[in-house]
């Protein structure tokens, strides 16, 4: 049975169809949640909340073909909420990109540096990066998914990339300072 039909049936209260929908889509939703939150426990919570909300609200989904984007939006919103509620997720002051922040970080950052830099970003900025660079969605598709304007997507993406690069560059400078003059 096609996903569209399963979604339709689940929207009419068929829990077996919902189970099939969940089995088909939970991996993708978990992957999104984990990449935004960077924490397995929080991602578990986000997935569970998402699946319950998907069940609750499925009758309101008018076009079953839009299920993937709709469920991804719910996942992102659960991630935002959990991230803001979770005390462990202490959001540091966002890195202010420098005006000429386009000509640096030529060296490829290692995994840990990337992780730390990513954690400097707000959940909203992370979500845009994940949808664009991980899921490969276009700016228009991200705008549809997150229910925000394409302009907002563009500015969030631009800011997120610049902030991430600025954070990595700052780390590189700190490391250089610790190593001292050559």
């Amino acid at each position, binding site marked *: 049975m096609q996903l569209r039909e399963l979604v339709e049936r689940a929207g009419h209260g068929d829990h077996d169809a919902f189970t099939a929908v969940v089995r088909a889509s939970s991996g993708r939703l978990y992957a999104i949640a*984990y990449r935004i939150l960077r924490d397995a426990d929080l991602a*578990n919570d986000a997935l569970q909340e998402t699946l319950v909300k998907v069940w609750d609200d499925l*009758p309101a989904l008018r076009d079953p073909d839009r299920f993937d984007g709709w469920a991804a939006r719910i996942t992102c919103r659960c991630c935002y909420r959990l991230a803001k509620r979770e005390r462990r997720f202490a959001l540091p002051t966002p890195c202010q990109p420098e005006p000429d922040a386009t000509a640096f970080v030529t060296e*490829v950052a290692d995994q840990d540096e990337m992780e730390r830099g990513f954690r400097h970003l707000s959940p909203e900025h992370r979500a845009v990066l994940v949808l664009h660079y991980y899921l490969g969605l276009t700016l228009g598709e991200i705008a549809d998914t997150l229910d925000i304007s394409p302009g907002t997507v563009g500015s969030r993406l631009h800011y997120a990339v610049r902030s991430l690069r600025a954070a990595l560059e700052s780390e590189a400078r700190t490391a250089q300072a610790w190593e001292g003059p050559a």
Partner: protein
Amino acid sequence: MTPEQDFERHLADWLTDGPNMAPTQVVDRALRQTAHRRQRRGAWRWLVLPLERIGHWFPTQRATLLATLAAVLAGVLLTSAVITLPFAGSPGSPPVMDDEAIVAIEGSAEVDITSVTPRQIDRVIDIETDDKRIEGRARQRLTVLTQSGDTRQLRGAMHLENDWGAWEGAVDIVTYPSGEEFEYAALEGTEAYQGFTYLYTTHRATAEAERTVVGAIWPDEPPSLPDPSLLP
């Protein structure tokens, strides 16, 4: 390839690295939770058709009608808010914290162990009670205090958070070879629950039995409970 493109490719590679499979226990728990749960339907459906029809009308008529509709809805919401005010934790309204009364809590809990190391056990507990102040997911981080055969005493920290605040404090657990388990904690409230204590106890008769939650919320600091590690 420009440095920008190189960086973006590296970012995409880094994001690719990570789990792509949802944990089975989380999916199963969500499916169990939704199996007997009613979907949201009906309440707002009656609005959809009229609103679609309104969309074809002239702008002035549409604006007048929408304004009337908004006023009616505001009236309905205000009335329902007043009616539901005495009920603690009704969705969308802050919980009512009675400074005088001690409120008994009953319910059930489902525990999942999320990680075990030789020194530490992490658990999450989904608590269901008829009091919204207590509903939600709690986290515990436990260490084994004593172990004698299969009888164990564990102690750790517990944190239960929901929409209006959190309950947190130390938790003590005793498990027996039969699977029977007692758990208790005197949790201090924060945010909307500030100044209140939730005495949380659970009991499970066997490893397979349902875990019952019994307790109380009262408007004061936690009592001084005996240190279980000092008990004979």
